[in-house]
């Protein structure tokens, strides 16, 4: 949706909530609220507690706003000091970036480049620049999307609140993978730093240390942001799953064994449940879209960057294996392997979470099609949804460039082969040119 309609929608949505409260006085509302408050008040945010580590990291690096927690189901905008802190961190980051680019121009930046062939140097230049670009863009986009992210969080929390009120189910989201990935990222980066410094010969100036360290930090933070995005997607995916499970209770398979009486009693709760399901589905779709809008630029950049990194690393491996000198430097091997495993893991995570969420979002209509509408109004209720969801599959697109789902890995690796071949040709070209020069000198 276009942003302005989005705004209207938000307003409407809030008012609708109030309407629902005012219209339907929940007898158990107070009790449920108490039930909600009591466990969660000490713990803090019920939803985001298990991605808390990532949140803290991102907050500390100024990528996320350090929001206040108003109630257990709402987060408020950050206080001024925290805002200032975030601004300060971003400013430092940009300063460091500029400093890096400057020092890369200076000769001691050239020591970072290991290989001698000019193609490789060009590759490494492009890689460095891409990394810097990605990180800077991430920072900028995050700075712009502060409000958007807080809105998303609030939406999710409200959703949980309603679910809790209607069904008394507190949705748990198992995003424990995030911590593992954090560890993986940290380990890979540290290892890479170590190898770099180990490989470097001669006296190492502090600027070089700053360069390498900041480079590693940039990579790590970008990767962390990707993990965060996929965690958000996972959360949304779990909500979708909940809706689908709810809907699945009405499908044929459940109804087969029952008698007509049971069927009646089973189906009579269908209309209001269907209303709730439809509303929840709409809101989930909206959350999904807004997440997409927030992250898509970053994701595009990251995809491009990791694609390029994977390609260059494969290329380096290839060169190391097939060079005629016969000496294979183990450092470069380890280095490439570390990069490869890091980026492949991230790509897999991203594509899998996107694919899972998209699948869950699109499967709802199929499940609804399985609901047995005996009487006329049930059929109407079902038709209403189905008519509007023909050919309306949602996609998690990378800025509209291409859809991200399970097949993205496939595409990316086919593209990697393409560019690999091109790089190999450049290498052969250079070899042939060297030979020519040798022949001319002889």
């Amino acid at each position: 949706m276009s942003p302005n309609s989005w705004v209207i929608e938000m307003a409407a949505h809030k008012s609708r909530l109030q309407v629902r409260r005012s219209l339907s006085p929940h007898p158990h509302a107070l009790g449920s609220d108490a039930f909600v408050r009591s466990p969660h008040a000490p713990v803090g945010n019920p939803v985001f507690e298990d991605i808390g580590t990532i949140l803290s990291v991102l907050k500390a690096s100024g990528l996320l706003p350090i929001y206040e927690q108003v109630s257990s189901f709402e987060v408020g905008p950050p206080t001024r000091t925290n805002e200032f802190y975030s601004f300060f961190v971003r400013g430092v980051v940009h300063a460091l970036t500029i400093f890096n680019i400057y020092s890369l121009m200076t000769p001691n930046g050239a020591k970072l480049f290991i290989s001698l062939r000019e193609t490789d140097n060009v590759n490494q230049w492009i890689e460095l620049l891409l990394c810097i670009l990605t990180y800077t863009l991430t920072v900028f986009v995050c700075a712009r999307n502060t409000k958007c992210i807080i809105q998303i969080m609030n939406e999710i929390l409200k959703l949980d609140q309603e679910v809790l009120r209607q069904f008394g189910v507190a949705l748990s989201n198992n995003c424990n993978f995030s911590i593992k990935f954090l560890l993986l990222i940290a380990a890979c980066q540290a290892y890479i730093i170590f190898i770099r410094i180990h490989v470097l010969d001669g006296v190492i100036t502090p600027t070089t240390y700053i360069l390498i360290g900041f480079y590693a930090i940039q990579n790590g933070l970008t990767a962390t942001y990707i993990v965060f995005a996929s965690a958000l997607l996972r959360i949304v995916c779990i909500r979708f799953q909940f809706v689908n499970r709810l809907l699945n209770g009405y499908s044929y398979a459940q109804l087969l064994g029952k008698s007509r009486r049971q069927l009646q009693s089973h189906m009579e709760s269908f209309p209001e449940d269907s209303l709730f399901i439809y509303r929840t589905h709409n809101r989930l779709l909206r959350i999904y879209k807004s997440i997409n809008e927030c992250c898509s630029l970053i994701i595009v950049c990251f995809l491009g960057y990791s694609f390029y990194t994977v390609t260059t690393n494969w290329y380096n491996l290839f060169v190391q294996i097939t060079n005629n000198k016969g000496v294979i430097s183990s450092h470069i091997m380890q280095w490439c392997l570390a990069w490869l495993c890091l980026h492949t893991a991230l790509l897999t995570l991203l594509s899998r979470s996107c694919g899972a969420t998209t699948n869950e979002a699109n499967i709802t209509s199929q499940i609804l099609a399985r609901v047995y509408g005996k009487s006329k109004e049930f059929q109407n209720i079902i038709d209403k949804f189905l008519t509007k969801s023909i050919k309306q599959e949602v996609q998690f697109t990378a800025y509209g460039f291409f859809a991200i789902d399970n097949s993205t890995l496939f595409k990316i690796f086919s593209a990697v082969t393409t560019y690999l071949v091109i790089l190999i040709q450049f290498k052969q070209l250079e070899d042939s040119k060297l030979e020519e020069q040798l022949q001319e000198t002889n």
Partner: protein
Amino acid sequence: MSQVTPMVQPLLLQFQQLFFLSKVVGVLPQDLTKFRHKNVLEKSRNGMIYMLGMLALYVGLYNLLIYSFSEEDRTLKATQSTLTFVIGLFLTYIGLIMMATDQVTALFNQGKLGELYERIRVVDERLYREQCLVNNSCIAKRIRIMLVMTIIFELFILLTTYIELVDYTQWLSLLWMVSAIPTFINTLDKIWFAVSLFALKERFEAINATLEDLVTEHEKFQTWLTGDADAPEPHTADSSETQPPQYDSNLEYLYKELGGIDIGSLRGSGGKNNKVAPIAHSLNSFGESIQTPRKPHQPNPNPMMNMAHESELSNATKVEEKLNNLCQVHDEICEIGKAMNGLWSYPILSLMAYGFLIFTAQLYFLYCATRAQSIPSLFRSAKNPFITVIVLVYTSGKCIYLIYLSWKTSLASKRTGISLHKCGVVADDNLLYEIVNHLSLKLLNHSVDFSACGFFTLDMETLYGVSGGITSYLIILIQFNLAAQQAKDAIQSFNSFNDTAGLVGAATEFGNESSTLYDLVTTTMMTPSNY
């Protein structure tokens, strides 16, 4: 006609020989005696152990084979360009990997497979209750045909290769027989999949057939009703005659009123298609359908209402139940198809990868053999073009048949909605229209699409991308080969110019190939919504 007996006989009855065979070679771990008595697949520990033993045996033999034939490869490595050697090394184990994938997945799924066929049996019973009969008898025939063809192909390839290309002087060469095992087992596994898929397709077609029967019956009923045999065919007849005469005065008035507008519209649309005959047609048909009062006056403007008891379609409440059940069964079959796809997804993926790689490699080695270069010993069948052709036909036949079958199945499942709409249109009745709309909305959302682990859908459009991929990789390999050859014989800059140029071309093809994959993926995304 097996279903005429009141109790539906299970589908597995047809699978006897296939099950015995696959039991013996160790494709399926399920229990033999239970199958023989109750025609059910149940998991059994002994079968599992036996199967694992077989797997271990095969792996051992295969390794022995590779070892015994590898001394030729040492010479190959010495002489040959590294490319061929690397490819050979890479492709040596892929057949084994494929076989292992099949057997291990069969082990994991041994429980689920039985449930699958149980579900199919339940579906058969429900279909039988709807008086639409499924004929299982031709399945057994199919199985036999497939088995025979498999065995013929395998034996032919094996024997010809053995006689032609293996020196059967030392006894070790008997090990060559082992090289046929993986493909054979894989084919058996795929026959299970293919036949079950075919059974699903038959179920879909049975549903469609019942719907079509409803339509034809109703049409007969209508023609009998409208009673004039001279009408060329029912539709125009009833459409022109069920039009009650009392409208006609108003219609002519309306027609006069609209004449100007029509002409204007025609002129206006003249830009788009300037005064083609079809418009004249439309005017004619409309005109003549306007001047219908000369037709004999029908006693009842709408024949559906009073003669309701004749055709089944004409009372909605009775047919609603049937249509509902059919729709549910359709959905159930779709679910079964998805489950089956889930069971076989990894084997299919491995089969596709295997087919792709082997096809490319075989052609490449054929090229090498024609250029009198030595090739890896396991692919010695590439030395003889004829055997190569047979191998290629066999390998590609497996893949293409699976793809074709799944495509056909999804077509059949889509066909159901069409025949449903035929029912709706033929008996035009508001109640029925509501039902038909509801059900067709549901049918639109029943999707049966077979995909290999979500990487690509098993669809004919995949063939396009795959063929493009094969050609491009082949050309790239050949060009690398040429480059290596020319690098061997002493070079000057001219040749390097050429082979780099060739490589550039290769890269171009690569780019296009990836882009075709791109298009392929996009098209496969678009296929549910092409319009």
